[in-house]
């Protein structure tokens, strides 16, 4: 037993060394035009050795450690507890959600501008993830090009404001509808595809949109992007120091308060909050409607669904279209928040991150997806010092999640339907 563990532990320790020493042990330094390699500081080397030692010790005494861990009762597990009564649980949940929402409404007035800005970004990701959740989590269609619809929403707003002078509020529905239209159009060719094939086609579609935006220089400005995208207005009141458009008034003058750059940020945050809540509520309704059940039925068993009279075409297209619609929403908000967009913002990595959020949160589970969106967006910001290892940490977190909680942070709960006894 021990001898067996010893061999395994040695192997693991050596692997740790082999992987971490080249990554951490060498530094590339640019001296003029030359690049030289220099060894890392002794401290780093000691830490690498220490890490290998920890791995070795853990693997050697793995059985003891694991059994000791198993002995600790898990606080989260309620397998032996009576399940809470259904309506009571729902009641408590709705109270907590209302509380969080109220907190989210007033919170930005007490924190720094940077945090509010980050929170807006979080909410944009919440919208995106909720939309993708419809396509991947509910309908079971693996979409790797979701960012394309996000780009459509953002560019619609940018172009409309640039060429036709549309405001944020006019562009919001237009951007969402146009993204939905793109979803519909993409839906048609991929209807027959499933699984891997679908993933590859959607991946291609995402890249096509990005490359198109990159190369259609006369319209989109190519890699230079589009700047000067207006911020949203509140009933015609602008949030800038000076009014840009004629006929508008400025927010701070109307209310006779001193100009503050923060007003604008907070306003955008509140808009995102309202839109994210709207997205969550609408999709929640959809999930309990025939269309939502049809999505899931098609994911569970396509043949059975068809034999019961569900049209594969209609169901898949509706999932694609509705998912894309909310990505368009998020795109419009994003364009307005940044004030400048370029194809850089819509690379494949974005699609991957949104998909990761959905998988981490728990496919189909709205609460889980929201939580994961918050975590995935905020954690890298908190870990700024380790910015070089961000993707490393992200990957490790994904692996650990899949090992310990493959069903996601908060797995989807089925709604409980009360039936009346028939006489």
């Amino acid at each position, binding site marked *: 037993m021990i001898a067996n563990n010893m061999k395994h532990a040695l192997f693991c320790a050596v692997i740790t060394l082999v992987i971490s020493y080249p990554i951490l042990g060498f530094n590339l330094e640019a001296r003029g035009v030359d690049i030289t390699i220099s060894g890392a500081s002794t401290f780093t080397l000691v830490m690498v050795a220490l890490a290998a030692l920890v791995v070795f010790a853990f693997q050697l005494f793995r059985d003891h450690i694991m059994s000791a861990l198993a002995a600790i009762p898990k606080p989260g597990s309620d397998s032996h507890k009576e399940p809470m009564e259904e309506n009571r649980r729902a009641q408590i949940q709705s109270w907590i959600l209302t509380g969080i929402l109220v907190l989210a409404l007033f919170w930005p007035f007490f924190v720094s501008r940077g945090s509010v800005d980050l929170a807006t970004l979080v909410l944009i990701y919440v919208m995106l993830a909720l939309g993708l959740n419809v396509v991947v989590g509910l309908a079971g269609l693996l979409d790797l090009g979701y960012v394309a619809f996000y780009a459509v929403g953002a560019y619609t707003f940018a172009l409309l404001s640039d060429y036709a002078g549309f405001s944020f509020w006019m562009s919001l529905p237009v951007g969402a509808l146009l993204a939905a239209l793109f979803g519909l159009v993409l839906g048609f060719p991929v209807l027959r595809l499933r699984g891997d094939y679908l993933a590859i086609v959607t991946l291609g579609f995402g890249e096509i949109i990005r490359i198109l935006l990159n190369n259609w220089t006369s319209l989109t400005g190519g890699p230079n992007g589009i700047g000067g995208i207006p911020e949203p207005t509140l009933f015609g009141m602008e949030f800038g120091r000076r009014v840009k458009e004629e006929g508008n008034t400025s927010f701070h003058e109307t209310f006779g308060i001193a100009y503050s750059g923060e007003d604008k940020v907070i306003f955008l945050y509140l808009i995102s909050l309202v839109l994210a809540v709207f997205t969550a509520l609408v999709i929640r309704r959809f999930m309990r409607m025939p269309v939502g059940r049809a999505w899931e039925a098609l994911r*569970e*068993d396509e043949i059975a669904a068809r034999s019961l009279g569900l049209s594969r075409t209609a169901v898949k297209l509706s999932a694609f279209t509705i998912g894309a619609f909310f990505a368009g929403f998020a795109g419009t908000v994003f364009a307005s928040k940044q004030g400048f967009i370029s194809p850089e913002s819509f690379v494949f990595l974005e699609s991957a991150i949104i998909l990761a959020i959905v998988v981490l949160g728990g496919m189909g589970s709205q609460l889980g997806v929201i939580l994961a969106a918050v975590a995935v967006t905020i954690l890298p910001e908190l870990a700024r010092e380790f910015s070089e290892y961000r993707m490393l940490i992200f990957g490790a977190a994904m692996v650990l999640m899949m090992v310990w909680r493959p069903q996601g942070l908060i797995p989807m709960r089925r709604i409980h339907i009360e039936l009346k006894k028939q006489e």
Partner: protein
Amino acid sequence: MLEVQNLSMRFGGLLAVDQVSLDVKEHEIVSIIGPNGAGKTTVFNCMSGFYQPTGGKILFEGAEVQGKPDYKISLLGMVRTFQHVRLFSQMTVVENLLVAQHRHLNTNLIAGLMKTPNYRKKEQKSLDRAAYWLDRVGLLDLANREAGNLAYGQQRRLEIARCMVTEPKLLMLDEPAAGLNPAETKDLNRLIVSLKEDYNVSVVLIEHDMSLVMDISDRINVINQGRPLASGTPEEIRQNDDVIKAYLGEA
């Protein structure tokens, strides 16, 4: 009400179904029997639109349905079960029945989002219908269980209930007794007869359990190696020499 005329189905060089004819009148239970690999399920797949038959006609209430997409055939009122149970296993038992009533429901998205009175009325009606059928097949207490967690016999019954909530005119059952114990088979027997008697549904049945087939069928069609071998009442089939030969081998 259903008429299958000279149905043929060819997969490459293999003629799986060859000139099979079949007719089902209203208020009738018709069985298709035959050895394994005889092409019974292929006939079903052609009838329900999963396959496009390479020859022959299928008339349902006088209209040709061969080659129509499967979901349209199902909407006409021909609904089937599967040899291997195909439930939406991660959805609850009620949800399985609600999905099946898709066409009875108001699928207008806006009406659903607004919860219009009309939408609610229909939703309630479909819930009532689901409850009725769950009660009928004895699964009401398990309504909020995940369908995949049910016992096998319960899954079989749920699949039949799921067909019945669509209010079909013709029900096609593909080996409904497979994997059931004798007591469950007896229940199934009663259920199928009651579907015919009380709900006025015609039934086409593929089955290997001879006691079930002989008990409840009004007429039986025997298929062997894709070809029709015999058809008639259970009594006639029991005494048919060809059938005995096909089933028992030549003495």
